[in-house]
């Protein structure tokens, strides 16, 4: 068990993914939810790198690079929306933003 194997990558990735998912589902602060989703996306990167390492192919690594680029674009947009909203309502609590309810 001292040798590095693909299972180690996958366990790390699964742990990160589940931590991120719990964060999204239980937290109420928008910034923390946002950080949790970023954690999930990075867990995916770890999984891709692990699989690429196991199969000795470059596809997984390329995919991970693209995911990093897309995640950066998503952060810009998300923080923009949060900025615009916090100027209006002065809060980052999702439960406080509740105008749209039937």
């Amino acid at each position, binding site marked *: 068990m001292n040798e590095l194997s693909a299972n180690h990558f*996958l366990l790390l*990735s699964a742990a990160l*993914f589940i931590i*991120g998912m719990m964060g*999204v589902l239980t937290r109420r602060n*928008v910034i923390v*939810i*946002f950080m949790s*989703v970023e954690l*999930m*996306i990075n*867990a*995916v990167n770890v*999984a*891709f790198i*692990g*699989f690429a390492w*196991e*199969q000795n*192919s470059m*596809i*997984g690594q*390329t*995919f991970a690079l*693209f*995911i990093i680029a*897309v995640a950066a*674009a*998503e952060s810009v*947009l*998300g923080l*923009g*929306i*949060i900025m*615009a*909203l916090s100027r*209006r*309502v002065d809060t980052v609590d*999702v439960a406080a*933003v*509740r*105008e*749209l309810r*039937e």
Partner: protein
Amino acid sequence: MPLIVDLVNPDLALMLPQLIVLGLAILLLVADIAVPKARHGVVLTWMALIGMGAALIANFTMVGTNESTFNGMFRADDFSVFINLVVLSGAILSIMVSSSYLEGHIEAGSMPLAEYYVLLSFSVLGTMIVGASGDLLMIFLGIEMSSLAVYALTGFARQRVSSLEGALKYFLLGLFASAILVYGMAWTYGATGSTNLNDIARSLSGVVTDGKVEASLLLALLLLIVGLGFKVAAVPFHMWTPDAYEGAPTPVSAYMSVIPKVAGFAAMTRILVQGLGPLRDEWVILIGVLAVITMAFGNIVAVSQRNVKRMLAYSSIGHTGYILAGLAAFETINPNGEISVASVLFYLFAYAFMNIGAFAIVTWLQARGSGTDLEDFAGLGSRSPLAALAMAVFMLSLMGLPPLVGFYGKYYVILATIEADMVWLAVAIVLASAVSAFFYLRVIATMYFSEPVRETPRTSTPLLGFGLVSMVAGTVLLGIFSSRVLDLASDWVQAFSVPI
């Protein structure tokens, strides 16, 4: 190395419709600076319309091609041609709906027109890329391109809290869904050793003949379906839909009720049918159950809605259920008489016309100072008979009354489910349509049998009016000539039948 040769000499002619839309987006950015602000309304709207129209014409020259470029990542085949047709028609109709609304400055403090059209073009481009992708990476990039632009469009009226709130909810849940989707792609890659859809199908066809499927593949399948379920707003992954549709400016609701959904269904078909087709026995039942829950929930909750935008949001969830039922009827890629994916494509095309139309009438009323509640439709039949007639056509078509296009959409889906021996799905569709008749007819009853509360002021919205006329004509004519459209949609088989 064939890989390097392929990347140095990509066959750009295959990407013509996509390149035209990309060029349009860049030109619109330039025009934002070059054209004087006072003339923005006319110049930019017509540029967008002509650009999308040119892409639509270029798309028709691609009918019948079946080739790939960029090392199999980009495909030009009959499936991508039909998706382009749906997306570009939807985009042209949305631009017509948007122009009057945005030029009329109904939303105080919204962003300028140029940004709107640029974001719309990029979202259209992303959806076209999903339709034309031959690789999981392209599907991921296309979906992200499509949805990122729509998140921004949802928050377009940035002075209004409800618009930003809708954008925030859509963004957070959309991002969550993307993470799940891409994790599913990682597991698919891990289990099959490739991200190319045809290679995935090839490596799976060997695995599945043993009759047992690995747990890692099932995990991948589940993650992919959950991620895409969020994107197409299937119950129980629909939480963002009503808030985003109600909060967004109405023309944006019209747009996002169709095009991102097309992206989701294109991705679903590409991944599940082309890539994971050998796993059909595993995913068909999942999609079928999802379809029944979705159409039941969407239609039942829509009954209690008083706000027309919110009602249309739930009704669009119901329509997601019908389209999923068409996908659940998939059996094999068989050139003779397999109409499951064809019925999905046909329904998406039908849905684009009638659903953008319904939102267009709400926009038409808002341009005349009206609200979006059901009471605002009271007496529309006597106040403005033509608008009421158009709304009645869209409602009856969404309900599924022959000979309108909505009826044929449902008819082909039911036919596909019966051919696949899934009578329970067909029964569910009929029952859900019966429930939906209640809230669609209620709009018609309010328009014709209620006393008008106030007059409709006269406002000139020529492009919106023209858009409404073309959508009514589309809803009626596509119904009458539905077999022609279905023939075009049935060519999907050629796109997916790969030598294994």
